[in-house]
């Protein structure tokens, strides 16, 4: 057997190197075009916006690792955002006390929002994991049900009440050691997810299920609970992101997270094209990439409706690039597939 060690490692390193160079290149180009690009203010703003799409993409990563798709999360987020906004508005103010600069009822409102998001994820997860329903279409269905239900809170109109007074905007505005809170949330969640997915036994089970579900079962992995949990996390994290957006916008909007679909998939898949599989770090890079692109173009006064175009094109290019076999020498001498041709059938 030929020595197989070197190609695989350097393959990924090559991809990472290329990718880093591309990001560097883009940053240089943008900073040349727009001198406002490299300012602290702009970078902070970019990271703020990135937090939201990054947290969403992080949730999606769990589902993609398993080899499934989720099309509900961006709509479930809307429901969660409206839940929080609604709870925020209701007059529980009488018995509230202050925690820092926020009223106490803000916290349960936020938690409730995340909780209902998780509940929707649970429904999708059970449908896909336990009942083996088609993931794409089922989640489209559950997503739209959630979205429609979100309208019930205020018949679709914005919720303004208590936004300025309850302190819910602190989620977006607070700064800990001069770092905006959303960024702290993002970094914290990514760290935790990294520990879970790349360092813990749960992560191993996730990747095993995604890589070869049957072999995972034969290794004693309980695949169904993992599938369910992945969908719960995806919807839950997106709900958090939707609440973060709501806090930033200062108003309860039923379309809070309706545009989160494309950037999330783009981030995860750009990560896959670099690392050959879905990973926390990869998704982070993907989210960073799309955020840098969006930020740069926004500074250049690109209209908002073109953002999907930028992201879509980036996604396609990233995947196409990854499919080019950089080590084309490898292809000319394919190693015979041990384990199949050798099998003497019965």
């Amino acid at each position, binding site marked *: 057997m030929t020595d197989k060690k070197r190609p695989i490692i350097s393959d990924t390193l090559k991809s990472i190197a290329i990718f880093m160079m591309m990001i560097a290149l883009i940053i240089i180009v943008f900073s040349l075009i727009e001198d406002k690009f490299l300012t602290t203010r702009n970078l902070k703003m970019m990271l703020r916006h990135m937090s939201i799409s990054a947290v969403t993409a992080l949730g999606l990563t769990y589902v993609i690792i398993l080899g499934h*798709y989720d099309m509900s999360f961006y709509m479930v987020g809307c429901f969660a955002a409206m839940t929080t906004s609604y709870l925020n508005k209701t007059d529980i103010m009488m018995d509230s006390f202050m925690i820092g600069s926020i009223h106490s009822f803000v916290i349960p409102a936020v938690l409730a929002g995340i909780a209902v998001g998780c509940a929707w994820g649970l429904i999708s997860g059970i*449908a896909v994991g336990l*009942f*083996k*329903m*088609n993931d*794409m*279409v*089922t989640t*489209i*269905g*559950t*997503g*739209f*049900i*959630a*979205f*429609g*239900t*979100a*309208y*019930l809170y205020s*018949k*679709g109109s914005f919720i303004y009440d208590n936004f300025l007074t309850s302190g819910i905007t602190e989620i977006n505005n607070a700064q800990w050691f001069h770092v905006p809170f959303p960024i702290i949330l993002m970094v914290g969640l990514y760290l935790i997810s990294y520990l879970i997915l790349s360092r813990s036994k749960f992560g191993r089970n996730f990747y095993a299920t995604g890589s070869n*579900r*049957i072999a995972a*079962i*034969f290794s004693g992995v309980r*695949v169904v609970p993992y599938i369910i949990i992945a969908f719960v996390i995806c919807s839950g994290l997106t709900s958090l992101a939707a609440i973060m957006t709501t806090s930033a916008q200062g108003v309860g909007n039923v379309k809070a997270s*309706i545009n989160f*679909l*494309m950037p999330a*998939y783009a981030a995860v*898949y750009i990560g896959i094209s670099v690392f050959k599989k879905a990973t926390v770090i990869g998704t982070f890079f993907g989210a960073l990439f799309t955020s840098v692109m969006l930020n740069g173009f926004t500074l250049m006064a690109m*209209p*908002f*409706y*073109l*953002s*999907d*175009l930028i*992201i*879509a*094109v980036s*996604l*396609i290019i990233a*995947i*196409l690039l990854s*499919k080019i076999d950089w080590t084309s020498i490898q292809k000319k001498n394919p190693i015979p597939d041990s384990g199949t041709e050798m099998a003497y059938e019965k």
Partner: protein
Amino acid sequence: MKNDSVRTNGFRLKHIFQAQYGLIWVALLMVAVFAVSSDVFRTAGNLLEILRQSGILAIMAIGLTWIVATGEIDVSFADIAAFTGIVTAVLLKAGFSWGVTFISATLLGTVFGVISGSLVVYFKFPALIATLAVSGIAKSLASLMGKGAVIHITKAGGLVYQLVYGNVFGIPLLFIVTLFIYLVCRYMQDRTTTGQHLYALGENRQATQEAGIKEGKILMSLFILSALLASIGGILLTATISSGNPKIGASYFLDGLTVVFLGAMIIKAGQPNVIGTLIGVIILSTLGNGLTLLGEYFFVGNIVKGLLLVFGVVVVTFTRYKNRIDGQYSVA
């Protein structure tokens, strides 16, 4: 007809029998409720309006029907329609004739199908990702052309007016055209090799490959066809509402998928098929019409459609489960 396979004769499998009839009962019940609650609903004019409005969605959803039957998905059809709708408005405003506009817009829209098909077939993108990206591009370009806003055009006159608003023996011409397209498509589905093979592909990829059938060719054709028909749908929509709207994507997307799965329940024992889709469209349009007339909030539509979609998926899943060869124990 005993000659036909399960596809055209869904009565054989008992549980589908129930689901299929169940849906028809629900539909009839729905119609009864509407008829009783709203005077307007009962009028012939209204019922004809339902048929007229069905046409556009019906045309848009044909390609999707077959793509889903193959086991893939296309999430871009609605945004492609939005795109061609805007292009139509732009070209008309610039003074081009309807003929030129129609052809140009259709061609441009079909390009998206070529892109999706290539990404999936040649570059092995997952269909969801490829069509998701294409839909983003289409939607953005649509917005770009109108600077994010709706483009209004003068109401169409002459031939187009007739097409959109005219009736033939009281039945909307648009619907008749739709029916015609459907009959052609039904022919393609049931009486040509591509139709046969796409169902084979959706059901057992391995057997299809072993039979020497080239799945790449089929998939490519389907993506192009889907884009083509979606384009036509978009053009007709613009003609109908006299404006190009870049944002119609979201609503037609859900509608399209829902009718495909409803249709799958009804006729071909859990497999998407064009006649089923057409019936699904009529049911959905009736539903939408009735709800509007009753003054129900528009978002209820989302909830109901979502529920219908999930229900449709449940039935289809159950059918696929039954279609696996029995007597074999499987692990996962």
